[in-house]
C-alpha cells in the first residue's frame, strides 16, 4: 500500500529506539507539567502572555530589526545580514578569513544546522566542531539530530561507546559518566585552541541589544571564555521587545524544554568583552539570517515564528513519540517542524507536504506550547495549501465516492437506508480485508442512518 514518507520512516524505526524515544519524551512532558502547574498560579496566563510578546515582536520586525542593529552596533558588535543559507555561510567564512582563523567551536545553534555550515566550512579547510555532547556525537557519527533539545534521543549508550572507541577517545566503556568525562577532556582543549566561538541566540532584546543564550552543559560559556572572536548566527525572529520580557520567556523555556526552573547557564551578551576581563571575545559579530523566514512572515502561518525551540511539542506529540525525529527529514522535527520545515523549504514544499498531515490534530502541542502557537490550525492551513498546489498524497484513501454521495441528496438517502443492511452482514462477509480485521475486533453499534433526518422532519411538521 502506498504511504507518506513519514509513515515509512516510522515503520522502519527499531522497537528499541521507539521505546526509548517514547519513554524519555513522556517523562520530560510529565515533569514539565508538574513544575509549571505546581509553581504558578496561572501557567496558562503566562503562556498566553509569552505568545503575545513574541507575536508583537514578529509583527513589528520592521521597526525592531533596525533598532536591534543600532543597539548592537552601539555596543561594539558588528552586524551582518544574510538572505540565504549560502549568504550566511559565506558571511561566517569572510569573518574567519579576515582573522586568518582556521578553527571554530560551536555551541548549539540550530541555524548552523539549517544552513549546513559545518559542511561548508570544512570544504574551505576550516575545522568546525560541535561542543554540545549530543551534537558532538551526532557529528562524529555523521548523523542528524532527532530532537530539538535532545539531539541523540535516538541513540543508546552502547552505540555511543562504540563511536568513542572508533574515534580514539578511549577503550569501549558505555557508562554515561565515563562518556561525558571523555568528551569533557577532549573538548576543553578544542575550545582553548579555537580561534572563533560560534553560537546561536535564544533571544535578542531590541531594547538593549543583549543576546541571550541558554545551555545546560556550559558549552556556549566555554566558547565565549576561550576564544577571541564570537560569531552569533541569529534567525531574524529571535527578537524580543524589552529586557523585562526575558524574565517571562526564561521562566517558560527551561520548564517547557527540560523541566528545569532555569537552564544552568543563561548568558546575556551585550557586546565584546570588557577591557579589564582577560577572557573572552574581543570581537563580536552578529549575523541575522532570513533563509525563508520573511516568506513565513508573509504567510498565513506566521505564528510559528514565535517558537522558542523548547521541544515541548515534540515531547507531547503522539506522532513524534512513534516516529522519532528523522522521520521529519529536516532540522526541525515534531509538530513545530511539521509547520516550519515545509514553510522554510521554499520550492521544496511538496517534498515535505506530508508532514502537516502526520497529525491527529489532538491539540496537545498547542496546549503545551510556551508561546501558545496554534499548531493544529497552522497544520490545517498547510494541508489546504498542499491541496491547492495539487501535491500528490500517496496513501490517502480516495474520497471520490464519498464526495459523490455527499453532494447528491438522493444518493445519500439511498446510502443511509442501504446502510441498515450492515446490521445483518456478518463480519466475515465484509469485502475489504482491512475493514474486516478492524470490525472483528469491535462491537459496532447498530446502524442508525437516517434517524436524524426523520427527527428533523417530525420537528418541522410539529
Amino acid at each position, binding site marked *: 500500500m502506498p504511504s507518506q514518507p513519514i509513515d515509512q520512516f516510522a515503520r522502519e524505526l527499531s522497537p528499541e529506539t521507539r521505546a526509548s524515544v517514547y*519513554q524519555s519524551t513522556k517523562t*520530560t512532558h510529565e515533569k514539565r507539567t508538574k513544575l509549571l502547574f505546581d*509553581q504558578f498560579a*496561572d501557567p496558562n496566563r*503566562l503562556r498566553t*502572555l509569552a505568545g503575545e510578546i513574541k507575536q*508583537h515582536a514578529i509583527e*513589528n520586525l*520592521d521597526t525592531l*530589526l*533596525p533598532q536591534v542593529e543600532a543597539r548592537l552596533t552601539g*555596543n561594539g558588535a558588528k552586524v551582518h*545580514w544574510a*538572505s540565504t543559507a549560502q*549568504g550566511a555561510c559565506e558571511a561566517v567564512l569572510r569573518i574567519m578569513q579576515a582573522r586568518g582563523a582556521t578553527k571554530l567551536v560551536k555551541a548549539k545553534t540550530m541555524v548552523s544546522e539549517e544552513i549546513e555550515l559545518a559542511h561548508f566550512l570544512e570544504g574551505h579547510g576550516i575545522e568546525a566542531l560541535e561542543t554540545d*555532547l*549530543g551534537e558532538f*556525537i551526532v557529528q562524529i557519527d555523521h548523523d542528524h539530530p532527532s530532537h530539538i533539545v*535532545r*539531539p*541523540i534521543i535516538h541513540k543508546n549508550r552502547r552505540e*555511543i561507546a562504540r563511536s568513542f572507541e572508533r574515534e580514539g577517545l578511549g577503550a569501549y566503556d558505555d557508562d*554515561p559518566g565515563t*562518556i*561525558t*568525562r571523555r568528551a*569533557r577532556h577532549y*573538548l*576543553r582543549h578544542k*575550545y*582553548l585552541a579555537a580561534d572563533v566561538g560560534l553560537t546561536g541566540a535564544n533571544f535578542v532584546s531590541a531594547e538593549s541589544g543583549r543576546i541571550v543564550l541558554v545551555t*545546560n552543559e*556550559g*558549552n556556549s*560559556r*566555554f566558547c565565549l*571564555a*576561550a576564544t577571541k572572536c564570537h560569531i552569533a548566527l541569529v534567525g*531574524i525572529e529571535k527578537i524580543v*521587545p524589552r*529586557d*523585562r520580557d526575558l*524574565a*517571562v520567556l526564561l521562566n517558560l523555556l527551561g520548564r517547557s524544554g527540560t523541566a528545569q526552573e*532555569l537552564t*544552568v*547557564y*543563561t548568558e*546575556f*551578551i*551585550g*557586546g565584546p*568583552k*570588557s577591557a579589564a*576581563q582577560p*577572557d*573572552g571575545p574581543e570581537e563580536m559579530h552578529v549575523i*541575522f539570517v532570513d533563509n525563508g523566514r520573511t*516568506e513565513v512572515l*508573509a504567510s498565513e502561518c506566521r505564528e510559528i515564528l514565535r517558537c522558542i525551540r523548547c521541544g515541548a511539542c515534540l515531547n507531547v506529540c503522539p506522532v513524534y513519540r512513534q516516529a522519532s525525529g528523522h522521520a521529519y527529514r529536516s532540522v526541525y522535527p515534531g509538530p513545530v517542524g511539521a509547520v516550519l520545515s515545509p514553510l522554510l523549504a521554499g520550492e521544496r514544499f511538496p517534498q515535505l507536504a506530508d508532514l502537516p498531515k502526520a497529525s491527529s490534530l489532538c491539540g496537545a502541542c498547542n496546549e503545551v506550547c510556551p508561546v501558545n502557537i496554534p499548531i493544529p490550525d497552522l497544520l490545517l492551513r498547510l494541508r489546504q495549501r498542499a491541496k491547492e498546489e495539487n501535491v500528490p498524497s500517496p496513501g490517502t484513501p480516495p474520497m471520490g465516492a464519498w464526495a459523490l454521495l455527499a453532494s447528491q441528496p438522493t444518493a445519500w438517502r439511498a446510502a443511509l437506508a442501504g446502510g441498515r443492511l450492515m446490521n445483518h452482514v456478518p463480519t466475515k462477509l465484509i469485502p475489504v480485508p482491512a475493514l474486516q480485521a478492524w470490525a472483528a475486533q469491535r462491537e459496532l453499534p447498530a446502524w442508525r442512518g437516517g434517524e436524524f433526518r426523520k427527527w428533523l422532519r417530525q420537528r418541522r411538521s410539529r
Partner: protein
Amino acid sequence: MSDDREAIFSRVRGALAPLRVRAPLPQYDTEIAVLRQVLAGRDLAELFGERIRKVGGLAFFTPAALVAHLRTGGRLHGYCDPVLWPGLAPHFGAGFQVETAFDRTRVDDYAFGITRAAGAIAETGTIILNDAATSCRLGALAPWVHVAVVERSSLFADLPQAVAGLGDDRNVVWCTGPSKTADVEGILIEGVHGPGEQIALVV
C-alpha cells in the same frame, strides 16, 4: 551584503504591509512570573542556600565550612581571584596551593576556582557572574569546583528583579547549579564542560 540587508528589510516590510492591525505590545506586571509561594516571608540568603541545593549546588556561610569541604574532597590546588585572596588566605592554611593568576595553558591543574559573584537570585538558586566583578571567565568555568563569593547585599529575590538589575555589563552569566547533561539515555551527569560542583560562599 548591504544588499542582503536591504532585501531582508524590504521583504519584512512587504510581509507586514497587509496586516491591518499589528499585535500590540502587552503591558503586564512581572509579578506574573514570580514564584510568590516560594519567596513569601523568607530570608533571602537562607532561601538562596536552600534553592541552590535543590539545583545540585551547595552553599556555605563561612569560609571555614568551604575550606573543610575542599579538603575533604581532596581539592587542594586552585585559583582564587587576587582581590579575594587576602581575605580568604588565613582560612586555608597548610596543604593548599592557590594561584591568583589563571594560566590557560594548564586548565586541568586547577581543582577549584574561586571568583567574585556580581549577585545571586534567591528564587532559583542562581549565581550571577559578570565581566566587572568576576576576575576571569575561565577560572569560574574550567575547574571541577567553582566557588562564587556572594555578598548578601547583592541578592535578588526573583528573576524579574535580576533581569531589571542586569546593569550595563557587557557580559552577564547566570549559573544555576553544576554544568549538566542528560544527552545519553536521559541519565543526568554533572560536570560536562563546566564545574561539576557549583558552590556559593555567602558572606
